[in-house]
């Protein structure tokens, strides 16, 4: 469970400030939550706030669970290090057994020889597979996923879906995606971020229809 108490987050933009969260107080239950919102509403920022990699301007966020880092395209990998070295680094900072993590990553990502090549030689799909493998190798209680499930070929998508489904027996997911079908696959409730306000919907269907109303305005 993650709770927000009077959280405010703003960004300076060319003409003034953009408010992403306006005094938000909410408790996100231990469920699989889809986050919806139009482009630029601040969905990725919201995920970074939840993970703790970004701080709110005011208010507090409490995490009563081991929350992952946001899994997205924005690479946190060092290009001159190999896939293995990057995976080893993440395993170390989270205090995991590095051999176990490397085994899992090799098995899951199917990157083979590429794992001993510098990450800068990877395509964006390969990077995403590495990122996916690394985060799934670490046991988080809440996975934050940002637009990343649509990578790779259908075989990889199937494999990652299966791996996630297995994880989601003990863990939860908070997901940002533009694909409603992906959201329906993983999530059972929704939250719509619109003009600085986050509205929680117990049923994902209601969240999606509200999001569509917002978009057509």
């Amino acid at each position, binding site marked *: 469970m993650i709770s927000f108490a009077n959280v405010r987050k703003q960004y300076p933009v060319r003409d003034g400030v953009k408010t992403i969260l306006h005094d938000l107080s909410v408790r996100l239950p231990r469920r699989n939550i889809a986050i919806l919102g139009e482009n630029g509403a601040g969905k990725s920022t919201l995920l970074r706030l939840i993970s703790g*990699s970004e*701080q709110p301007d005011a208010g507090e966020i409490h995490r009563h669970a081991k929350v992952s*880092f946001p899994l997205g395209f924005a690479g*946190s990998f*060092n290009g001159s290090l190999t896939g293995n070295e990057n995976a080893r*680094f993440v395993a*170390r*900072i989270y*205090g995991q057994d590095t051999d176990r993590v490397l085994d899992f990553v090799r098995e899951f990502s199917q990157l083979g020889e590429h794992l001993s090549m510098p990450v800068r030689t990877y395509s964006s799909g390969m990077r995403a597979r590495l990122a996916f493998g690394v985060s799934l190798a670490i046991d988080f209680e809440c996975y934050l996923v940002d637009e990343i499930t649509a990578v790779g070929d259908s075989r990889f998508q199937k494999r990652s879906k299966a791996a996630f489904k297995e994880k989601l027996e003990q863990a939860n997911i908070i997901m940002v995606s533009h694909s409603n079908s992906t959201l329906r696959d993983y999530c059972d409730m929704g939250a719509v971020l619109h003009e600085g306000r986050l509205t929680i919907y117990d049923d994902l269907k209601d969240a999606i229809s509200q999001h569509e109303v917002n978009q057509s305005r």
Partner: protein
Amino acid sequence: MSAVLTSSFGKALMCQVRVVGALILREMRVRFGRSQLGYLWAVAEPLAYVAAFSAMFHYLDRHPPFGSSMALFFATGILPFQLFRNLGTQLAGAFSANQALLTYPIVQPIDTIVSRAILEAATSLFIILVVLSAFVISGSAPMPANIMRLFEALALLSLLGFGFGLASAVIITRINAWQNVTRLIMAPMLFMSGVFYSLDTLPMQARAIVVWNPVIHGVEMFRDGYYSNYRADEVASLYLLVCGLLLTFVALTIERTIRGRIE
């Protein structure tokens, strides 16, 4: 309650030690590459300075400013100087170079500073040890006269480099152009820090200026520790200490006020 506090503090500390350790290993890989050759380059750099300047001064038919060996005089200048310079420049870039790592909420900005500081100081000490040992073993220099004095100089220069680098890193997060200011300060430092001369041999007017540079006090202190009869009357170790502490204190204060907004 206090037991709970201590254990959660202990846990946080353990976590930070783990993160800093992982960062050091990662940084080593990036900087020195996969082979031991990377470390060789780090040692080669000050040696190249020593060789080039000794040769130059030799052909200019100049006497060493102190002692009989030109190479030893330069080495005892460039070695402590590069400890300060490497700490300063590497730390100044720590936040910007490791920005992507802050995606991992477990990595705090200050961890990237601490890990770079440890790696830089250790590398510089290693270089100093290798170069000076080479001098002593080859018989071209005596053993240092006062090892404690050497370490005192290195510790104070490390503190100064840490303060300078941390302050720069923090300011750069707000004012990007500060990178250029840092470079502007560092560029004349080699000539302002007594690497090529001793304070004692400078004309009074020049001495009155360079004596404000805290680095020269560290360099002169290092020579004072190496040579048994070095003239180091004007060395003020307290001034060097105060400068280092002041920079560190100011940097930490600024870091605290803008924490969480390092972007």
